């Protein structure tokens, strides 16, 4: 079983194994060795990877790892292998329309219990003066509307949950 780091909804399976001169990094079928990390402070250190040294700045905030290397920044969510399996089975019975960006709810065009078809408008959101229509990802019944009109939400927040069957 691999560990997984998620970025922008894409999982990157990773495995680390010990070797005599540090660690080996397994990325899919690719193996990079040796890799190592020397901490300089609680937010900086030097990564050694296949003979190269990279100064790294980082912050670990619960399951989020923010990393800065050479002017670029990436944020990874560490996904516990067991939790990953659990959430896959849970998501199968319901569908969630998530926020593509942070913003505010302008209007909601459906109500709980209503049947919707794929592509139907569920909600209009506004973000930085741009209006975006949130549409049903597939056929279903509106189970829950997570935010009222005028309420604000973060990116990836669930906006409308649909169930395949009515309750």
């Amino acid at each position, binding site marked *: 079983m691999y560990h997984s780091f998620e970025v922008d909804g894409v999982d990157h399976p990773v495995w680390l194994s010990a070797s005599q001169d540090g660690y080996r990094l397994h990325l899919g079928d690719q193996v990079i060795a040796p890799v190592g990390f020397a901490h300089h402070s609680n937010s900086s250190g030097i990564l050694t990877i296949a003979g190269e040294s990279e100064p790294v700045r980082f912050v670990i905030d619960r399951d989020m*790892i923010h990393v800065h290397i050479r002017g670029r920044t990436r944020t990874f969510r560490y996904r516990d292998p067991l939790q990953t399996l659990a959430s896959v089975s849970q998501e199968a019975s319901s569908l969630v329309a998530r926020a593509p960006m942070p913003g505010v709810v302008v209007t909601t065009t459906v109500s709980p219990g209503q049947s919707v078809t794929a592509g139907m408008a569920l909600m209009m959101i506004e973000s930085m003066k741009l209006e975006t229509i949130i549409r049903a990802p597939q056929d279903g019944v509106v189970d829950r509307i997570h935010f009222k009109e005028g309420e604000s939400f973060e990116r990836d927040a669930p906006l409308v949950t649909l169930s395949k069957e009515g309750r």
Partner: protein
Amino acid sequence: MHTLPFDTVLVANRGEIAARIIKTLRKLGLRSAVVYHEVDAHTPAVSMADTAIEISGRSPIAAYLDTAQLIAVAHKARAGALHPGYGFLSENAEFARAVRKAGITFIGPAPETIELMGDKIRARKFVQCSGFPVAPSAVDEDDPEEFVVRARAIGAPLLVKPSGGGGGKGMRIVRNLDSLEDAIEQARREGQRYFGDSRVYVERYIEKPRHIEVQVLGDSFGNVVHLFERECSVQRRFQKIIEETPSPALSPQLRKRICETAVGIARAANYQNAGTVEFIFGAGEFYFLEMNARLQVEHPVTEMVTGVDLVAEQVYAAAGRALGFSQSDIAANGHAIEIRLYAEAPERGYAPTTGKVLLLEYPDGVRIDSGILQGQQITTAFDPMLAKIIAHAPTRIESALKAHRAIREMILLGCETNASFLARILADEAFLGGEIHTGYLEEHPQMAADNFAFGLSAFLASAALLTRPVRESADAVPPLHAALGRWRN
């Protein structure tokens, strides 16, 4: 010691501009007071000001737009003057009037000037009647059908704009005249929604136009000078991202002409205080676009090359002092580039981003006008601009290199920003060659795209090595076993 008619100035703004204004007030020996909504309690301006007074409203933005509350706060802080910054109420003539009526000096031009320049249609007519160039256009008057006919007569391509607008909101380019009516309707709707004004105007759209503006300063004695131009052609959705001075597009003759035109317009308007005359420049010709009756976001590049503190000049002009220098005293030295750090993701259509600033470190050797502190929460309550980095060097290339180094050295973790996008532009051949225009980013869509795979293994290696459970599962297997082969469970 100052000899100004007021000793305390209320800054009716937030973010980087509030902090920047406070710096000058301090330099001038003035006391600074700043207003803040509770979401801004932990920001640079609040910690820098001599007094910070909380304001409230239905939304954070509404608090900063509440004239009555701001004036009450000014009295409470015993402020003799008020600086509106940019945005919010800075170009609201009614606000300027209300401030004056309350016996407080408004640091900005006269309300009548704000009114004139705030109405794009009136401003254009004024400039045209004063004998200065404007682009061929049609103005929306009483008869909407006749307006469409006149707009059509200018010929494609056209630019449709809401009259009450600014910041590029509601603007549309029409290349095919069949879609003109739809574009006008859309601009009307957006104008009504954002500015409470459904009037629009249509003008000739100049292909590959450059946005060049001229900084002017006027006093109450009729003196007007310019502080050269700024080029702000690198824009996304009509919003500026990178600004510089001097413009790489102007010959010395054109520079002289455009700067003198700006002074002429300001003089005709009896302009007092700092202002900016914006022009559109293409094929060797320039046309008046609009005049901004306030301090601009990009004013620091002008300050870097001229050595003039524009906020100090605004304070002096508002206090009724005569300009302390004449045109011949102003010289531009070197080249300055400003880059705007935004909380947004260029690779996702410039969608705004949010988060808590967990680590913030600015580079040395450049000017930083920052509106954020480590620990601050970035929300979508306000404009996404977080900070500005301004690089000054003898030449354009050196200044771009300096800005490039600075943006790569800057560390901001916890909220996604456009930093690597800015770095890509600063290293782009077309940008470095000065081949920019307002459609530059649409013409080079690859600039907004991030090559995610590049360097990914170093990021994943760091993430893996910094995550305890990942390291623990590696350490659980002795190296001897591990050496035998890839471990599977």
